[in-house]
Every structure is written in C-alpha cells, then in structure tokens.
C-alpha cells in the first residue's frame, strides 16, 4: 500500500514536471545569426521582435519589415536569409542522422530569399520541400543552393 502511494506521488510529480503537450512540440530548429532593422517572429499566436542568437522553433513564422533582413542557421547548417518585406513559415523540420530521419518543409510566402544547402541538402535533398505562392520548388541534386523572389500579391 505504501508502495502504491509513493508511486502515485511519483506520477503526480511527473505530471507536474513534464512540460505541457503544446510546449513539447516546440522543437528548436535553428538560430538567428544575421539581423538588420525590424524582424518579427510569430509563435503560438504571439508576435515578438527577433534578436541575434534567438532560437527558431518548428512552426515559427518570420517576417521582415521594410528595412528588415534576417539570416538563419538551421541545425543541419542550411542557411536561409531574407530581405525586406519577406515572410517564411518553418512548417516542418527534422534532422536526425542517427535515425536517418530527414524532413524540411518551408513556406516562402513572399519576399527575397537566399537559400544555401546544408547537410540535409547533402544527405537527403529529396526530403526538402519548398512551397511558394506560385508553386513548389524541389531539389533534383545534392548541394542545391538558390535565390528566389516572390511578389507579395503573387499566387
């Protein structure tokens, strides 16, 4: 009986310690490395300004103002930067070489983008999926880097 009680205590403790499910989904996928002007990050329905060395999480949306620009380093060394009036959402990102799991889905909604391939583009170029307002970009070869521009009202 005593044992059961202590188990109960442990269970209650664990529930208290374990993060909420919504929080558990927050997966760090990269970091802000370069920054100019005003750049915002939308996360869980809240918008906050971005600062150098800030973490980027899966599902974040990043927007730059008219004088803004941001350079991001993802976990696999993919580098993505955007110029002014740009918007991207980091829909899905998995980089787990130990278990051979790779996925990247970004939605480049509008603006100017510089994309430099990292390890993901080397190990699993076909796992990279880039959505844009006018269509989809996919990689046909490893180490594919590109620049792209999409107008704000394009579709």
């Amino acid at each position, binding site marked *: 009986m005593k044992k059961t009680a202590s188990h109960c205590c442990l269970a209650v403790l664990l529930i208290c310690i374990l993060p909420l499910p919504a929080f558990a989904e927050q997966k760090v996928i990269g970091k802000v490395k370069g920054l100019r002007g005003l750049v915002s990050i939308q996360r869980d329905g809240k918008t906050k300004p971005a600062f150098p060395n800030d973490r980027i999480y899966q599902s974040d949306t990043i927007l730059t103002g008219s004088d803004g620009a941001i350079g991001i380093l993802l976990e696999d060394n993919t580098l993505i930067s955007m110029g002014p009036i740009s918007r991207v959402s980091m829909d899905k990102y998995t980089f787990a070489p130990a278990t051979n799991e790779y996925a990247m889905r970004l939605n480049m909604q509008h603006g100017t983008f510089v994309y430099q391939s990292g390890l993901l583009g080397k190990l699993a170029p076909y796992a990279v999926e880039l959505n844009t307002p006018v*269509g989809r970009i996919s990689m046909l070869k490893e180490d594919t880097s590109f620049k792209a521009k999409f107008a704000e009202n394009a579709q």
Partner: protein
Amino acid sequence: MNWKSVIVLAAAILMAGCGTKENFVVLSPTNDGSVGALKVVTEKGSEVLTEDGKAIFIGDRNSAPSTPTPINAAETQLVFQDALRVHPLMPESFILYFQFNSNELTDESKKQINNILVAIKKRQSRDISVIGHTDRTGRDEYKRKLSLERAQLVYNILRSEEVTGEDMTIIYHGEGNPLIPTADNIAEPRNRRVEVMVR
C-alpha cells in the same frame, strides 16, 4: 490595326503589368563553382533549372513556369543584396590532435588555435561546441575522462575576454564516434582529437 496585332499588344501590356519578373528562381554556385539542380512546379507545368546565370520566371500559380532564361548577374545581386548582407557564414569545424595517452596537443594542432579564433571572430560566434574524443586504448572510464580533459584543455585555451565560457559547450565521447573506426585497444592517433565547431 488588325485583330492579331491588338492581341499581341494586349498580351505584351498584360505581361508587363503583371510583372513576370516579380517571381523567379536562380541557382547559386557553391564554393567550387558548381551548381545543383531544382524543379519548379506550378498548377500548369514544371521546369528544371540546372545552369548558373539562368532563371525560371513564374507569372502566377496558374501559368506554366518559363524555360530557363538568361538573367543579368548584377541585377540578381541587386535584388538580393539586403538578404546577402545578413546571410550567415557556413559553420566551420576544426580538428585538433593529441599526443598518445595525454592531454597535450600536437605541435601541428597548436598552430590551428589561431585559425579557430579567427573563425569565431569573423562570425562573432556565441555558439561553439568543443567535442572531446579518444582512441580505443585503455579502460572505458579512463577514456571518457581523458576525452573530457582534452575538451576542457581546448576550452581553456580558447577562453578569453572575447570568447566566454557561455559561448562554448563541452561534449565528450570517450572512444565513441571515432574518426577512423578501429578494433578495440588500437592506438589510432587520428582518433585522439577534439573537434571545435564554430557556428
């Protein structure tokens, strides 16, 4: 003016108005000058891009992408200059080697320290991993301790007013993750190392 020329003129005005150059993709060469390959798919078709100096233009989702079309390099540079100005440098990794059964760097590796400091400074990096390893000689516990000592030694060398302890993370593997896989108890100099990853 006949019907045909009216249509051609209207099409030209329409294309100019829509700004077909508003949406485009261009490949970037890697350090060795080679480019990759990508595909653009819209509702109405797809195009493959494999060459440097050419772009695929896309009117909108409901039109086919253009075939690869030459694009002026200076113009491209101008369009992306703000993004390029904040584009991060690719992380750089350095490997420092140790003398046998010791936490003393080889002379060759001592000379690398300055290159690491330059890489940190260039990136204003606050995100440096110092990762210790050993070869497969000795007992496991000893190897783990030695790999930690090696990482700590490099950490102490790199640490200064500019590079603080908070900027660095120490990781140690013992004989795990060897650079050169060997059988147990093999003294492999290339596995006695500390990797410094500057992001």
